[in-house]
Protein backbone atom coordinates (compact mmCIF):
# COMPACT_ATOMS: atom_id res chain seq x y z
CA UNK A 1 0.00 0.00 0.00
CA UNK A 2 1.22 3.47 -0.83
CA UNK A 3 1.29 6.05 1.90
CA UNK A 4 0.66 9.60 0.80
CA UNK A 5 1.30 12.50 3.09
CA UNK A 6 1.24 15.31 0.59
CA UNK A 7 -2.02 17.19 0.33
CA UNK A 8 -4.03 16.46 -2.78
CA UNK A 9 -3.42 19.92 -4.16
CA UNK A 10 0.36 19.43 -4.25
CA UNK A 11 -0.03 16.24 -6.21
CA UNK A 12 -2.36 17.83 -8.74
CA UNK A 13 -0.12 20.84 -9.17
CA UNK A 14 2.90 18.63 -9.76
CA UNK A 15 1.05 16.43 -12.22
CA UNK A 16 -0.30 19.47 -14.07
CA UNK A 17 3.14 21.04 -14.31
CA UNK A 18 4.61 17.83 -15.66
CA UNK A 19 1.83 17.40 -18.21
CA UNK A 20 1.88 21.02 -19.39
CA UNK A 21 5.65 20.89 -19.75
CA UNK A 22 5.42 17.63 -21.67
CA UNK A 23 2.69 19.02 -23.91
CA UNK A 24 4.39 22.32 -24.62
CA UNK A 25 7.89 21.09 -25.24
CA UNK A 26 7.38 17.64 -26.70
CA UNK A 27 3.93 17.00 -28.08
CA UNK A 28 3.25 20.42 -29.56
CA UNK A 29 6.49 20.63 -31.61
CA UNK A 30 5.93 17.08 -32.83
CA UNK A 31 2.40 17.93 -33.94
CA UNK A 32 3.78 21.05 -35.65
CA UNK A 33 6.25 18.96 -37.62
CA UNK A 34 3.49 16.79 -39.04
CA UNK A 35 1.13 19.71 -39.58
CA UNK A 36 3.79 21.63 -41.53
CA UNK A 37 4.78 18.52 -43.45
CA UNK A 38 1.21 18.10 -44.70
CA UNK A 39 0.47 21.81 -45.07
CA UNK A 40 0.67 21.54 -48.87
CA UNK A 41 -1.06 18.22 -49.09
CA UNK A 42 -0.10 14.60 -49.52
CA UNK A 43 1.23 15.06 -53.05
CA UNK A 44 3.91 17.51 -51.98
CA UNK A 45 4.63 15.32 -48.98
CA UNK A 46 5.32 12.20 -51.03
CA UNK A 47 7.09 14.13 -53.78
CA UNK A 48 9.47 15.50 -51.16
CA UNK A 49 10.20 11.98 -49.94
CA UNK A 50 10.57 10.59 -53.47
CA UNK A 51 12.97 13.30 -54.63
CA UNK A 52 16.34 11.78 -55.65
CA UNK A 53 18.21 14.02 -53.20
CA UNK A 54 15.91 12.97 -50.37
CA UNK A 55 16.36 9.30 -51.28
CA UNK A 56 20.12 9.79 -51.41
CA UNK A 57 20.02 11.41 -47.97
CA UNK A 58 17.97 8.52 -46.59
CA UNK A 59 20.39 6.06 -48.14
CA UNK A 60 23.36 7.89 -46.63
CA UNK A 61 21.69 7.93 -43.22
CA UNK A 62 20.83 4.23 -43.40
CA UNK A 63 24.30 3.24 -44.52
CA UNK A 64 25.77 5.31 -41.72
CA UNK A 65 23.57 3.57 -39.18
CA UNK A 66 24.28 0.16 -40.71
CA UNK A 67 28.00 0.64 -40.30
CA UNK A 68 28.05 2.60 -37.06
CA UNK A 69 25.70 0.40 -35.05
CA UNK A 70 27.61 -2.92 -35.55
CA UNK A 71 30.92 -1.16 -34.83
CA UNK A 72 29.57 0.24 -31.60
CA UNK A 73 27.92 -3.06 -30.77
CA UNK A 74 31.24 -4.89 -30.95
CA UNK A 75 33.14 -2.14 -29.20
CA UNK A 76 30.43 -1.66 -26.56
CA UNK A 77 30.23 -5.33 -25.63
CA UNK A 78 34.01 -5.68 -25.57
CA UNK A 79 34.49 -2.57 -23.47
CA UNK A 80 31.67 -3.36 -21.06
CA UNK A 81 32.90 -6.93 -20.69
CA UNK A 82 36.46 -5.84 -20.03
CA UNK A 83 35.44 -3.18 -17.56
CA UNK A 84 32.91 -5.19 -15.58
CA UNK A 85 34.43 -8.66 -15.51
CA UNK A 86 38.13 -7.92 -15.17
CA UNK A 87 40.45 -5.72 -13.20
CA UNK A 88 43.29 -4.11 -15.05
CA UNK A 89 45.47 -1.03 -15.00
CA UNK A 90 43.98 1.95 -16.78
CA UNK A 91 40.42 0.75 -16.26
CA UNK A 92 39.28 4.12 -14.95
CA UNK A 93 41.01 5.80 -17.85
CA UNK A 94 39.10 3.61 -20.29
CA UNK A 95 35.85 4.46 -18.50
CA UNK A 96 36.55 8.17 -18.78
CA UNK A 97 37.40 7.82 -22.46
CA UNK A 98 34.12 6.05 -23.12
CA UNK A 99 32.34 9.05 -21.59
CA UNK A 100 34.40 11.59 -23.49
CA UNK A 101 32.09 11.97 -26.52
CA UNK A 102 29.20 12.83 -24.19
CA UNK A 103 31.07 15.81 -22.80
CA UNK A 104 32.55 17.04 -26.09
CA UNK A 105 30.42 19.33 -28.25
CA UNK A 106 29.55 17.60 -31.56
CA UNK A 107 31.03 20.51 -33.51
CA UNK A 108 34.38 19.89 -31.84
CA UNK A 109 33.98 16.20 -32.62
CA UNK A 110 33.63 17.11 -36.29
CA UNK A 111 36.56 19.53 -36.23
CA UNK A 112 38.79 16.86 -34.68
CA UNK A 113 38.42 14.84 -37.87
CA UNK A 114 39.04 17.89 -40.06
CA UNK A 115 42.25 18.57 -38.13
CA UNK A 116 43.26 14.95 -38.47
CA UNK A 117 42.22 14.05 -42.00
CA UNK A 118 41.66 17.47 -43.66
CA UNK A 119 43.96 18.62 -46.46
CA UNK A 120 45.76 20.91 -43.98
CA UNK A 121 45.60 18.25 -41.26
CA UNK A 122 48.13 15.81 -39.85
CA UNK A 123 47.34 12.94 -42.19
CA UNK A 124 45.86 15.04 -45.01
CA UNK A 125 48.82 15.21 -47.42
CA UNK A 126 49.42 11.46 -47.21
CA UNK A 127 45.74 10.71 -47.81
CA UNK A 128 45.62 13.03 -50.82
CA UNK A 129 48.77 11.46 -52.26
CA UNK A 130 47.10 8.06 -52.00
CA UNK A 131 43.76 9.37 -53.25
CA UNK A 132 41.89 8.38 -50.11
CA UNK A 133 38.99 10.58 -49.15
CA UNK A 134 37.92 10.68 -45.52
CA UNK A 135 36.47 14.08 -44.67
CA UNK A 136 33.86 15.59 -47.01
CA UNK A 137 33.01 12.04 -48.04
CA UNK A 138 31.13 9.14 -46.46
CA UNK A 139 34.01 7.75 -44.36
CA UNK A 140 34.20 11.07 -42.50
CA UNK A 141 30.48 11.03 -41.81
CA UNK A 142 30.77 7.51 -40.44
CA UNK A 143 33.82 8.32 -38.30
CA UNK A 144 32.14 11.39 -36.84
CA UNK A 145 28.99 9.42 -36.11
CA UNK A 146 30.95 6.61 -34.47
CA UNK A 147 32.68 9.19 -32.31
CA UNK A 148 29.46 10.67 -30.96
CA UNK A 149 27.72 7.31 -30.48
CA UNK A 150 30.58 5.41 -28.83
CA UNK A 151 29.15 5.61 -25.30
CA UNK A 152 25.66 4.44 -26.26
CA UNK A 153 26.07 0.65 -26.06
CA UNK A 154 28.90 0.52 -23.53
CA UNK A 155 27.21 2.88 -21.05
CA UNK A 156 24.09 0.75 -21.17
CA UNK A 157 25.88 -2.55 -20.59
CA UNK A 158 28.41 -1.63 -17.90
CA UNK A 159 25.90 -1.21 -15.02
CA UNK A 160 24.00 -4.36 -16.02
CA UNK A 161 27.13 -6.47 -16.25
CA UNK A 162 28.55 -5.04 -13.05
CA UNK A 163 25.40 -5.84 -11.11
CA UNK A 164 25.45 -9.40 -12.42
CA UNK A 165 28.97 -9.99 -11.16
CA UNK A 166 31.17 -12.85 -12.33
CA UNK A 167 29.68 -15.83 -10.44
CA UNK A 168 27.83 -17.33 -13.39
CA UNK A 169 30.86 -17.12 -15.63
CA UNK A 170 33.03 -18.66 -12.91
CA UNK A 171 30.53 -21.50 -12.50
CA UNK A 172 30.53 -22.15 -16.23
CA UNK A 173 34.32 -22.15 -16.37
CA UNK A 174 34.61 -24.56 -13.40
CA UNK A 175 32.17 -26.89 -15.12
CA UNK A 176 34.57 -27.06 -18.03
CA UNK A 177 33.15 -24.63 -20.56
CA UNK A 178 35.66 -22.82 -22.75
CA UNK A 179 36.00 -19.03 -22.48
CA UNK A 180 34.33 -18.55 -25.84
CA UNK A 181 31.48 -20.84 -24.93
CA UNK A 182 31.02 -19.08 -21.60
CA UNK A 183 30.84 -15.78 -23.39
CA UNK A 184 28.20 -16.93 -25.86
CA UNK A 185 26.11 -19.08 -23.52
CA UNK A 186 26.35 -17.20 -20.24
CA UNK A 187 27.49 -13.60 -20.61
CA UNK A 188 25.61 -12.64 -23.77
CA UNK A 189 22.20 -14.13 -22.88
CA UNK A 190 22.31 -12.25 -19.58
CA UNK A 191 22.71 -8.91 -21.30
CA UNK A 192 20.78 -9.41 -24.52
CA UNK A 193 18.05 -6.91 -23.61
CA UNK A 194 20.71 -4.44 -22.53
CA UNK A 195 22.40 -4.88 -25.88
CA UNK A 196 19.15 -4.29 -27.72
CA UNK A 197 18.47 -1.20 -25.63
CA UNK A 198 21.92 0.17 -26.39
CA UNK A 199 21.55 -0.59 -30.10
CA UNK A 200 18.24 1.27 -30.23
CA UNK A 201 19.71 4.36 -28.58
CA UNK A 202 22.84 4.17 -30.72
CA UNK A 203 20.78 3.85 -33.89
CA UNK A 204 18.59 6.80 -33.01
CA UNK A 205 21.58 9.01 -32.35
CA UNK A 206 23.42 7.79 -35.46
CA UNK A 207 20.47 8.64 -37.69
CA UNK A 208 19.75 11.97 -36.04
CA UNK A 209 23.25 13.36 -35.53
CA UNK A 210 23.60 16.85 -36.99
CA UNK A 211 26.49 18.85 -35.53
CA UNK A 212 29.48 16.58 -36.04
CA UNK A 213 28.24 15.34 -39.41
CA UNK A 214 27.54 18.87 -40.61
CA UNK A 215 31.21 19.80 -40.08
CA UNK A 216 32.67 16.86 -42.02
CA UNK A 217 30.02 16.32 -44.69
CA UNK A 218 30.80 19.13 -47.17
CA UNK A 219 27.04 19.36 -47.82
CA UNK A 220 27.13 17.95 -51.33
CA UNK A 221 23.54 17.40 -52.42
CA UNK A 222 22.72 13.84 -53.29
CA UNK A 223 26.14 12.60 -52.15
CA UNK A 224 27.15 13.47 -48.61
CA UNK A 225 23.90 14.72 -47.16
CA UNK A 226 22.30 12.80 -44.34
CA UNK A 227 18.63 13.25 -43.50
CA UNK A 228 19.13 15.92 -40.81
CA UNK A 229 21.37 17.91 -43.19
CA UNK A 230 18.86 17.50 -45.99
CA UNK A 231 16.14 18.93 -43.74
CA UNK A 232 18.27 22.01 -43.15
CA UNK A 233 19.01 22.44 -46.86
CA UNK A 234 15.35 22.19 -47.83
CA UNK A 235 14.39 24.64 -45.12
CA UNK A 236 17.01 27.09 -46.36
CA UNK A 237 15.62 26.76 -49.86
CA UNK A 238 12.24 27.93 -48.64
CA UNK A 239 10.74 24.49 -49.17
CA UNK A 240 9.28 24.26 -45.67
CA UNK A 241 6.72 21.60 -46.50
CA UNK A 242 9.38 19.35 -48.03
CA UNK A 243 11.77 20.01 -45.14
CA UNK A 244 9.14 19.01 -42.62
CA UNK A 245 8.18 15.99 -44.71
CA UNK A 246 11.71 14.64 -44.35
CA UNK A 247 11.71 15.77 -40.72
CA UNK A 248 8.51 13.81 -40.17
CA UNK A 249 10.35 10.63 -41.17
CA UNK A 250 12.94 11.39 -38.50
CA UNK A 251 10.14 12.13 -36.04
CA UNK A 252 8.48 8.81 -36.84
CA UNK A 253 11.80 7.11 -36.32
CA UNK A 254 11.94 8.76 -32.91
CA UNK A 255 8.48 7.50 -32.04
CA UNK A 256 9.32 3.96 -33.14
CA UNK A 257 12.49 4.21 -31.07
CA UNK A 258 10.45 5.31 -28.08
CA UNK A 259 8.07 2.37 -28.41
CA UNK A 260 10.87 -0.14 -28.94
CA UNK A 261 12.68 1.36 -25.98
CA UNK A 262 9.74 0.95 -23.62
CA UNK A 263 9.22 -2.66 -24.72
CA UNK A 264 12.87 -3.45 -24.11
CA UNK A 265 12.85 -1.60 -20.80
CA UNK A 266 9.90 -3.69 -19.63
CA UNK A 267 11.85 -6.82 -20.55
CA UNK A 268 14.94 -5.65 -18.68
CA UNK A 269 12.86 -5.06 -15.56
CA UNK A 270 11.29 -8.49 -15.89
CA UNK A 271 14.69 -10.10 -16.29
CA UNK A 272 15.91 -8.46 -13.14
CA UNK A 273 13.01 -9.67 -10.95
Amino acid sequence: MQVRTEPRIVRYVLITIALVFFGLFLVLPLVCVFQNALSKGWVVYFDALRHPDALAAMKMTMITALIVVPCNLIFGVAAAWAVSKFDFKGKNLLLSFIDLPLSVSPVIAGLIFILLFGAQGVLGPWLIAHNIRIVFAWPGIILATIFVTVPMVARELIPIMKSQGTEEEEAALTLGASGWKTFWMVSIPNIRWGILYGVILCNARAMGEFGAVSVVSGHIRGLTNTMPLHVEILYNEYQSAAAFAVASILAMLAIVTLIAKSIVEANIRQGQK
Partner: protein
Amino acid sequence: MRSFKAFLLLMGVFWGVSVITLALAENKVTLLNVSYDPTRELYQAFNNAFADHWLKEAGTTVVVNQSHGGSGKQARSVIDGLEADVVTLALAYDIDAIAEKTNLLPKGWQARLPHNSAPYTSTIVFLVRKGNPKNIRDWDDLAKSGVSVITPNPKTSGGARWNYLAAWGHALKKWDNDENKAKEFVAAIFKNVPVLDSGARGSTTTFVERKIGDVLIAWENEAYLVLNQLGKGEYEIVMPSLSILAEPSVALVDKNVDRHGTRKVAEAYLEYLYSEEGQEIAARNYYRPRLQAVAEKYAAQFQSVNLITIDEAFGGWQKAQKTHFSDNGTFDQIY
Protein backbone atom coordinates in the same frame (compact mmCIF):
# COMPACT_ATOMS: atom_id res chain seq x y z
CA MET B 1 21.83 -17.77 -29.04
CA ARG B 2 21.55 -18.97 -32.61
CA SER B 3 19.23 -16.07 -33.41
CA PHE B 4 21.74 -13.64 -32.01
CA LYS B 5 24.50 -15.08 -34.15
CA ALA B 6 22.18 -14.88 -37.13
CA PHE B 7 21.56 -11.25 -36.27
CA LEU B 8 25.27 -10.57 -36.27
CA LEU B 9 25.67 -12.41 -39.58
CA LEU B 10 22.86 -10.33 -41.07
CA MET B 11 24.62 -7.18 -39.92
CA GLY B 12 27.75 -8.42 -41.63
CA VAL B 13 25.91 -9.03 -44.89
CA PHE B 14 24.29 -5.57 -44.74
CA TRP B 15 27.69 -4.10 -44.17
CA GLY B 16 29.19 -5.78 -47.20
CA VAL B 17 26.27 -4.84 -49.43
CA SER B 18 26.34 -1.20 -48.36
CA VAL B 19 30.06 -0.89 -48.99
CA ILE B 20 29.67 -2.38 -52.47
CA THR B 21 26.74 -0.08 -53.32
CA LEU B 22 28.77 2.92 -52.26
CA ALA B 23 31.75 1.79 -54.30
CA LEU B 24 29.52 1.44 -57.37
CA ALA B 25 27.86 4.80 -56.83
CA GLU B 26 31.26 6.50 -57.02
CA ASN B 27 31.68 5.27 -60.57
CA LYS B 28 30.14 8.31 -62.31
CA VAL B 29 31.41 11.38 -64.17
CA THR B 30 30.58 14.34 -62.00
CA LEU B 31 31.62 17.89 -61.25
CA LEU B 32 31.47 19.43 -57.81
CA ASN B 33 30.59 23.12 -57.69
CA VAL B 34 31.23 24.60 -54.26
CA SER B 35 29.23 27.79 -54.09
CA TYR B 36 27.90 30.36 -51.65
CA ASP B 37 24.49 30.65 -50.13
CA PRO B 38 22.02 32.46 -52.40
CA THR B 39 23.10 30.78 -55.66
CA ARG B 40 21.07 27.62 -55.06
CA GLU B 41 18.31 28.49 -57.53
CA LEU B 42 20.74 29.92 -60.08
CA TYR B 43 22.92 26.83 -60.28
CA GLN B 44 19.99 24.46 -60.18
CA ALA B 45 18.79 26.04 -63.42
CA PHE B 46 22.27 26.51 -64.89
CA ASN B 47 23.42 22.94 -64.17
CA ASN B 48 20.49 21.52 -66.11
CA ALA B 49 21.18 23.83 -69.04
CA PHE B 50 24.86 22.97 -69.02
CA ALA B 51 24.13 19.23 -68.87
CA ASP B 52 21.99 19.54 -72.01
CA HIS B 53 24.62 21.68 -73.70
CA TRP B 54 27.44 19.26 -72.86
CA LEU B 55 25.44 16.26 -73.99
CA LYS B 56 25.05 17.89 -77.42
CA GLU B 57 28.60 19.20 -77.53
CA ALA B 58 30.61 16.28 -76.19
CA GLY B 59 28.06 13.50 -76.08
CA THR B 60 28.65 12.73 -72.44
CA THR B 61 26.30 13.07 -69.52
CA VAL B 62 27.59 15.33 -66.80
CA VAL B 63 26.12 15.58 -63.33
CA VAL B 64 27.02 18.71 -61.39
CA ASN B 65 26.80 18.32 -57.64
CA GLN B 66 26.26 21.39 -55.51
CA SER B 67 27.43 22.41 -52.09
CA HIS B 68 26.17 25.68 -50.56
CA GLY B 69 27.00 27.65 -47.45
CA GLY B 70 28.50 30.91 -46.27
CA SER B 71 31.23 31.92 -48.74
CA GLY B 72 34.05 32.02 -46.17
CA LYS B 73 33.00 28.71 -44.69
CA GLN B 74 32.91 27.11 -48.14
CA ALA B 75 36.41 28.37 -48.94
CA ARG B 76 37.56 26.91 -45.63
CA SER B 77 36.06 23.54 -46.60
CA VAL B 78 37.91 23.56 -49.93
CA ILE B 79 41.14 24.42 -48.10
CA ASP B 80 40.46 21.53 -45.72
CA GLY B 81 40.00 19.12 -48.59
CA LEU B 82 36.49 19.39 -50.02
CA GLU B 83 37.33 18.36 -53.59
CA ALA B 84 35.64 21.10 -55.58
CA ASP B 85 36.20 21.08 -59.33
CA VAL B 86 35.00 24.65 -59.54
CA VAL B 87 34.37 27.27 -56.89
CA THR B 88 31.76 29.97 -57.43
CA LEU B 89 32.04 32.15 -54.35
CA ALA B 90 30.69 35.49 -53.20
CA LEU B 91 33.91 37.43 -53.52
CA ALA B 92 37.40 37.17 -54.94
CA TYR B 93 39.04 37.23 -51.53
CA ASP B 94 37.67 33.83 -50.57
CA ILE B 95 39.18 32.29 -53.70
CA ASP B 96 42.41 34.19 -52.99
CA ALA B 97 42.41 32.53 -49.59
CA ILE B 98 42.29 29.10 -51.22
CA ALA B 99 45.14 30.03 -53.58
CA GLU B 100 47.14 31.42 -50.69
CA LYS B 101 46.73 28.58 -48.21
CA THR B 102 46.99 25.73 -50.69
CA ASN B 103 48.53 25.08 -54.07
CA LEU B 104 45.19 24.03 -55.54
CA LEU B 105 45.04 26.91 -58.00
CA PRO B 106 47.51 29.60 -59.10
CA LYS B 107 47.51 33.00 -57.39
CA GLY B 108 46.73 34.72 -60.68
CA TRP B 109 43.44 32.84 -61.11
CA GLN B 110 41.37 36.01 -61.45
CA ALA B 111 42.90 36.98 -64.79
CA ARG B 112 42.04 33.64 -66.41
CA LEU B 113 38.42 34.50 -67.21
CA PRO B 114 36.85 37.72 -68.53
CA HIS B 115 35.53 40.48 -66.23
CA ASN B 116 37.75 39.61 -63.25
CA SER B 117 36.38 36.07 -63.35
CA ALA B 118 32.97 37.39 -62.34
CA PRO B 119 30.45 36.32 -65.01
CA TYR B 120 27.60 38.15 -63.30
CA THR B 121 27.44 40.96 -60.79
CA SER B 122 25.06 42.00 -58.11
CA THR B 123 24.64 44.73 -55.58
CA ILE B 124 23.38 45.28 -52.08
CA VAL B 125 19.82 46.46 -51.46
CA PHE B 126 17.39 46.75 -48.54
CA LEU B 127 14.38 44.53 -48.15
CA VAL B 128 11.67 45.99 -45.91
CA ARG B 129 8.24 44.82 -44.83
CA LYS B 130 5.12 45.93 -46.71
CA GLY B 131 4.44 49.66 -46.61
CA ASN B 132 7.92 50.30 -45.20
CA PRO B 133 6.58 50.98 -41.67
CA LYS B 134 9.91 52.35 -40.37
CA ASN B 135 10.31 54.52 -43.46
CA ILE B 136 13.74 53.22 -44.39
CA ARG B 137 15.13 55.05 -47.41
CA ASP B 138 18.90 55.02 -47.10
CA TRP B 139 21.86 53.81 -45.06
CA ASP B 140 21.37 56.59 -42.50
CA ASP B 141 18.02 55.10 -41.50
CA LEU B 142 19.70 51.83 -40.52
CA ALA B 143 21.76 53.56 -37.84
CA LYS B 144 18.73 55.11 -36.13
CA SER B 145 17.73 53.66 -32.79
CA GLY B 146 14.62 51.52 -32.81
CA VAL B 147 15.35 50.03 -36.23
CA SER B 148 16.15 46.33 -36.22
CA VAL B 149 18.60 45.35 -38.98
CA ILE B 150 19.27 41.80 -40.22
CA THR B 151 22.61 40.98 -41.85
CA PRO B 152 24.83 37.89 -41.68
CA ASN B 153 28.22 37.63 -39.99
CA PRO B 154 31.02 39.21 -42.09
CA LYS B 155 33.47 36.69 -40.70
CA THR B 156 31.77 33.78 -42.43
CA SER B 157 29.51 35.28 -45.07
CA GLY B 158 30.61 36.91 -48.29
CA GLY B 159 27.36 38.81 -48.69
CA ALA B 160 27.78 40.27 -45.23
CA ARG B 161 31.18 41.65 -46.17
CA TRP B 162 29.67 43.41 -49.18
CA ASN B 163 26.93 44.77 -46.88
CA TYR B 164 29.49 46.02 -44.41
CA LEU B 165 31.68 47.68 -47.03
CA ALA B 166 28.68 49.29 -48.76
CA ALA B 167 27.67 50.89 -45.46
CA TRP B 168 31.27 51.93 -44.86
CA GLY B 169 31.51 53.40 -48.36
CA HIS B 170 28.34 55.40 -47.80
CA ALA B 171 29.76 56.85 -44.57
CA LEU B 172 33.08 57.69 -46.22
CA LYS B 173 31.26 59.64 -48.88
CA LYS B 174 29.01 61.41 -46.41
CA TRP B 175 31.78 62.47 -44.03
CA ASP B 176 34.40 63.15 -46.65
CA ASN B 177 36.57 60.04 -46.16
CA ASP B 178 36.70 60.33 -42.36
CA GLU B 179 37.49 56.74 -41.33
CA ASN B 180 36.60 57.35 -37.66
CA LYS B 181 33.18 58.71 -38.55
CA ALA B 182 32.66 55.71 -40.85
CA LYS B 183 33.55 53.34 -38.03
CA GLU B 184 31.09 55.05 -35.68
CA PHE B 185 28.39 54.90 -38.31
CA VAL B 186 28.84 51.19 -39.06
CA ALA B 187 29.04 50.48 -35.32
CA ALA B 188 25.69 52.21 -34.89
CA ILE B 189 24.19 49.97 -37.60
CA PHE B 190 25.56 46.83 -36.00
CA LYS B 191 24.13 47.88 -32.63
CA ASN B 192 20.77 47.40 -34.32
CA VAL B 193 21.51 43.83 -35.42
CA PRO B 194 19.75 41.28 -33.16
CA VAL B 195 20.90 38.10 -34.96
CA LEU B 196 24.08 37.42 -36.93
CA ASP B 197 23.55 34.32 -39.07
CA SER B 198 26.54 32.58 -40.63
CA GLY B 199 25.31 32.92 -44.22
CA ALA B 200 23.11 35.16 -46.34
CA ARG B 201 20.44 32.49 -46.66
CA GLY B 202 20.23 32.11 -42.91
CA SER B 203 19.60 35.84 -42.58
CA THR B 204 16.86 35.76 -45.18
CA THR B 205 15.20 32.92 -43.30
CA THR B 206 15.46 34.92 -40.08
CA PHE B 207 13.82 37.92 -41.74
CA VAL B 208 11.18 36.11 -43.78
CA GLU B 209 10.23 32.98 -41.87
CA ARG B 210 11.04 33.96 -38.32
CA LYS B 211 9.78 37.51 -38.95
CA ILE B 212 12.62 39.19 -37.05
CA GLY B 213 13.83 42.66 -37.99
CA ASP B 214 12.60 45.72 -39.88
CA VAL B 215 15.10 45.61 -42.71
CA LEU B 216 17.25 42.94 -44.33
CA ILE B 217 20.48 44.06 -45.98
CA ALA B 218 20.64 41.58 -48.83
CA TRP B 219 22.00 40.68 -52.20
CA GLU B 220 19.82 42.15 -54.91
CA ASN B 221 19.19 38.65 -56.29
CA GLU B 222 18.21 37.32 -52.87
CA ALA B 223 15.85 40.27 -52.30
CA TYR B 224 14.11 39.67 -55.66
CA LEU B 225 13.80 35.98 -54.90
CA VAL B 226 11.98 36.82 -51.69
CA LEU B 227 9.86 39.43 -53.44
CA ASN B 228 8.75 37.18 -56.29
CA GLN B 229 8.70 33.73 -54.83
CA LEU B 230 8.07 33.94 -51.11
CA GLY B 231 5.82 36.77 -50.23
CA LYS B 232 4.21 38.53 -53.14
CA GLY B 233 3.12 41.92 -51.82
CA GLU B 234 4.53 41.34 -48.37
CA TYR B 235 7.89 42.98 -48.92
CA GLU B 236 9.38 45.95 -50.73
CA ILE B 237 12.86 46.57 -52.10
CA VAL B 238 14.51 49.86 -51.20
CA MET B 239 17.46 51.01 -53.29
CA PRO B 240 19.90 53.04 -51.19
CA SER B 241 21.41 56.20 -52.70
CA LEU B 242 24.75 54.42 -52.98
CA SER B 243 25.67 50.78 -53.08
CA ILE B 244 28.59 48.58 -54.01
CA LEU B 245 29.33 46.62 -57.16
CA ALA B 246 29.53 43.05 -55.96
CA GLU B 247 31.50 40.72 -58.20
CA PRO B 248 30.96 37.10 -57.20
CA SER B 249 33.93 35.24 -58.67
CA VAL B 250 34.31 31.80 -60.20
CA ALA B 251 37.44 29.71 -60.62
CA LEU B 252 38.68 26.34 -61.71
CA VAL B 253 40.43 24.37 -58.96
CA ASP B 254 43.34 23.07 -61.03
CA LYS B 255 44.74 20.40 -58.73
CA ASN B 256 41.32 18.88 -58.16
CA VAL B 257 40.23 18.80 -61.82
CA ASP B 258 43.54 17.25 -62.82
CA ARG B 259 43.15 14.57 -60.17
CA HIS B 260 39.57 13.90 -61.25
CA GLY B 261 40.35 14.14 -64.97
CA THR B 262 37.60 16.74 -65.35
CA ARG B 263 39.55 19.77 -66.53
CA LYS B 264 37.93 19.99 -69.96
CA VAL B 265 34.35 19.78 -68.77
CA ALA B 266 35.01 22.07 -65.78
CA GLU B 267 36.51 24.71 -68.05
CA ALA B 268 33.54 24.43 -70.38
CA TYR B 269 31.23 24.76 -67.40
CA LEU B 270 32.72 28.09 -66.33
CA GLU B 271 32.89 29.39 -69.89
CA TYR B 272 29.24 28.52 -70.40
CA LEU B 273 28.41 31.00 -67.60
CA TYR B 274 29.51 33.73 -70.03
CA SER B 275 27.48 32.39 -72.97
CA GLU B 276 24.18 33.91 -73.94
CA GLU B 277 22.20 31.13 -72.32
CA GLY B 278 24.27 31.26 -69.13
CA GLN B 279 23.80 35.02 -68.93
CA GLU B 280 20.05 34.65 -69.53
CA ILE B 281 19.80 32.21 -66.66
CA ALA B 282 21.77 34.56 -64.42
CA ALA B 283 19.49 37.46 -65.35
CA ARG B 284 16.38 35.37 -64.77
CA ASN B 285 17.71 34.69 -61.28
CA TYR B 286 18.24 38.44 -60.75
CA TYR B 287 21.99 38.54 -61.17
CA ARG B 288 23.14 41.45 -63.35
CA PRO B 289 24.45 39.95 -66.60
CA ARG B 290 27.71 41.06 -68.27
CA LEU B 291 26.66 40.38 -71.88
CA GLN B 292 25.33 43.59 -73.41
CA ALA B 293 22.49 41.96 -75.35
CA VAL B 294 21.16 40.17 -72.27
CA ALA B 295 21.65 43.20 -70.06
CA GLU B 296 19.53 45.29 -72.43
CA LYS B 297 16.82 42.66 -72.55
CA TYR B 298 16.53 42.61 -68.77
CA ALA B 299 17.23 46.32 -68.23
CA ALA B 300 13.81 46.99 -66.75
CA GLN B 301 14.47 44.46 -64.00
CA PHE B 302 17.51 46.20 -62.56
CA GLN B 303 17.29 49.73 -61.14
CA SER B 304 20.30 51.84 -61.91
CA VAL B 305 22.14 52.91 -58.83
CA ASN B 306 25.31 54.74 -57.90
CA LEU B 307 27.85 51.97 -57.36
CA ILE B 308 31.25 52.13 -55.74
CA THR B 309 33.76 49.39 -56.47
CA ILE B 310 35.95 47.51 -54.09
CA ASP B 311 39.11 48.50 -55.96
CA GLU B 312 38.37 52.24 -56.02
CA ALA B 313 36.92 52.66 -52.56
CA PHE B 314 38.93 50.12 -50.61
CA GLY B 315 42.03 49.36 -52.66
CA GLY B 316 41.05 45.78 -53.48
CA TRP B 317 39.89 42.80 -51.48
CA GLN B 318 43.22 41.94 -49.88
CA LYS B 319 43.42 45.35 -48.27
CA ALA B 320 39.73 45.53 -47.37
CA GLN B 321 39.83 42.10 -45.78
CA LYS B 322 42.91 42.99 -43.73
CA THR B 323 41.55 46.34 -42.52
CA HIS B 324 38.02 45.25 -41.77
CA PHE B 325 37.56 41.53 -41.30
CA SER B 326 40.81 40.01 -40.07
CA ASP B 327 41.43 39.55 -36.33
CA ASN B 328 41.28 42.96 -34.64
CA GLY B 329 40.02 44.51 -37.87
CA THR B 330 37.33 47.18 -37.68
CA PHE B 331 34.57 44.61 -37.39
CA ASP B 332 36.15 43.11 -34.28
CA GLN B 333 36.54 46.58 -32.83
CA ILE B 334 32.89 47.52 -33.23
CA TYR B 335 31.09 44.24 -32.59
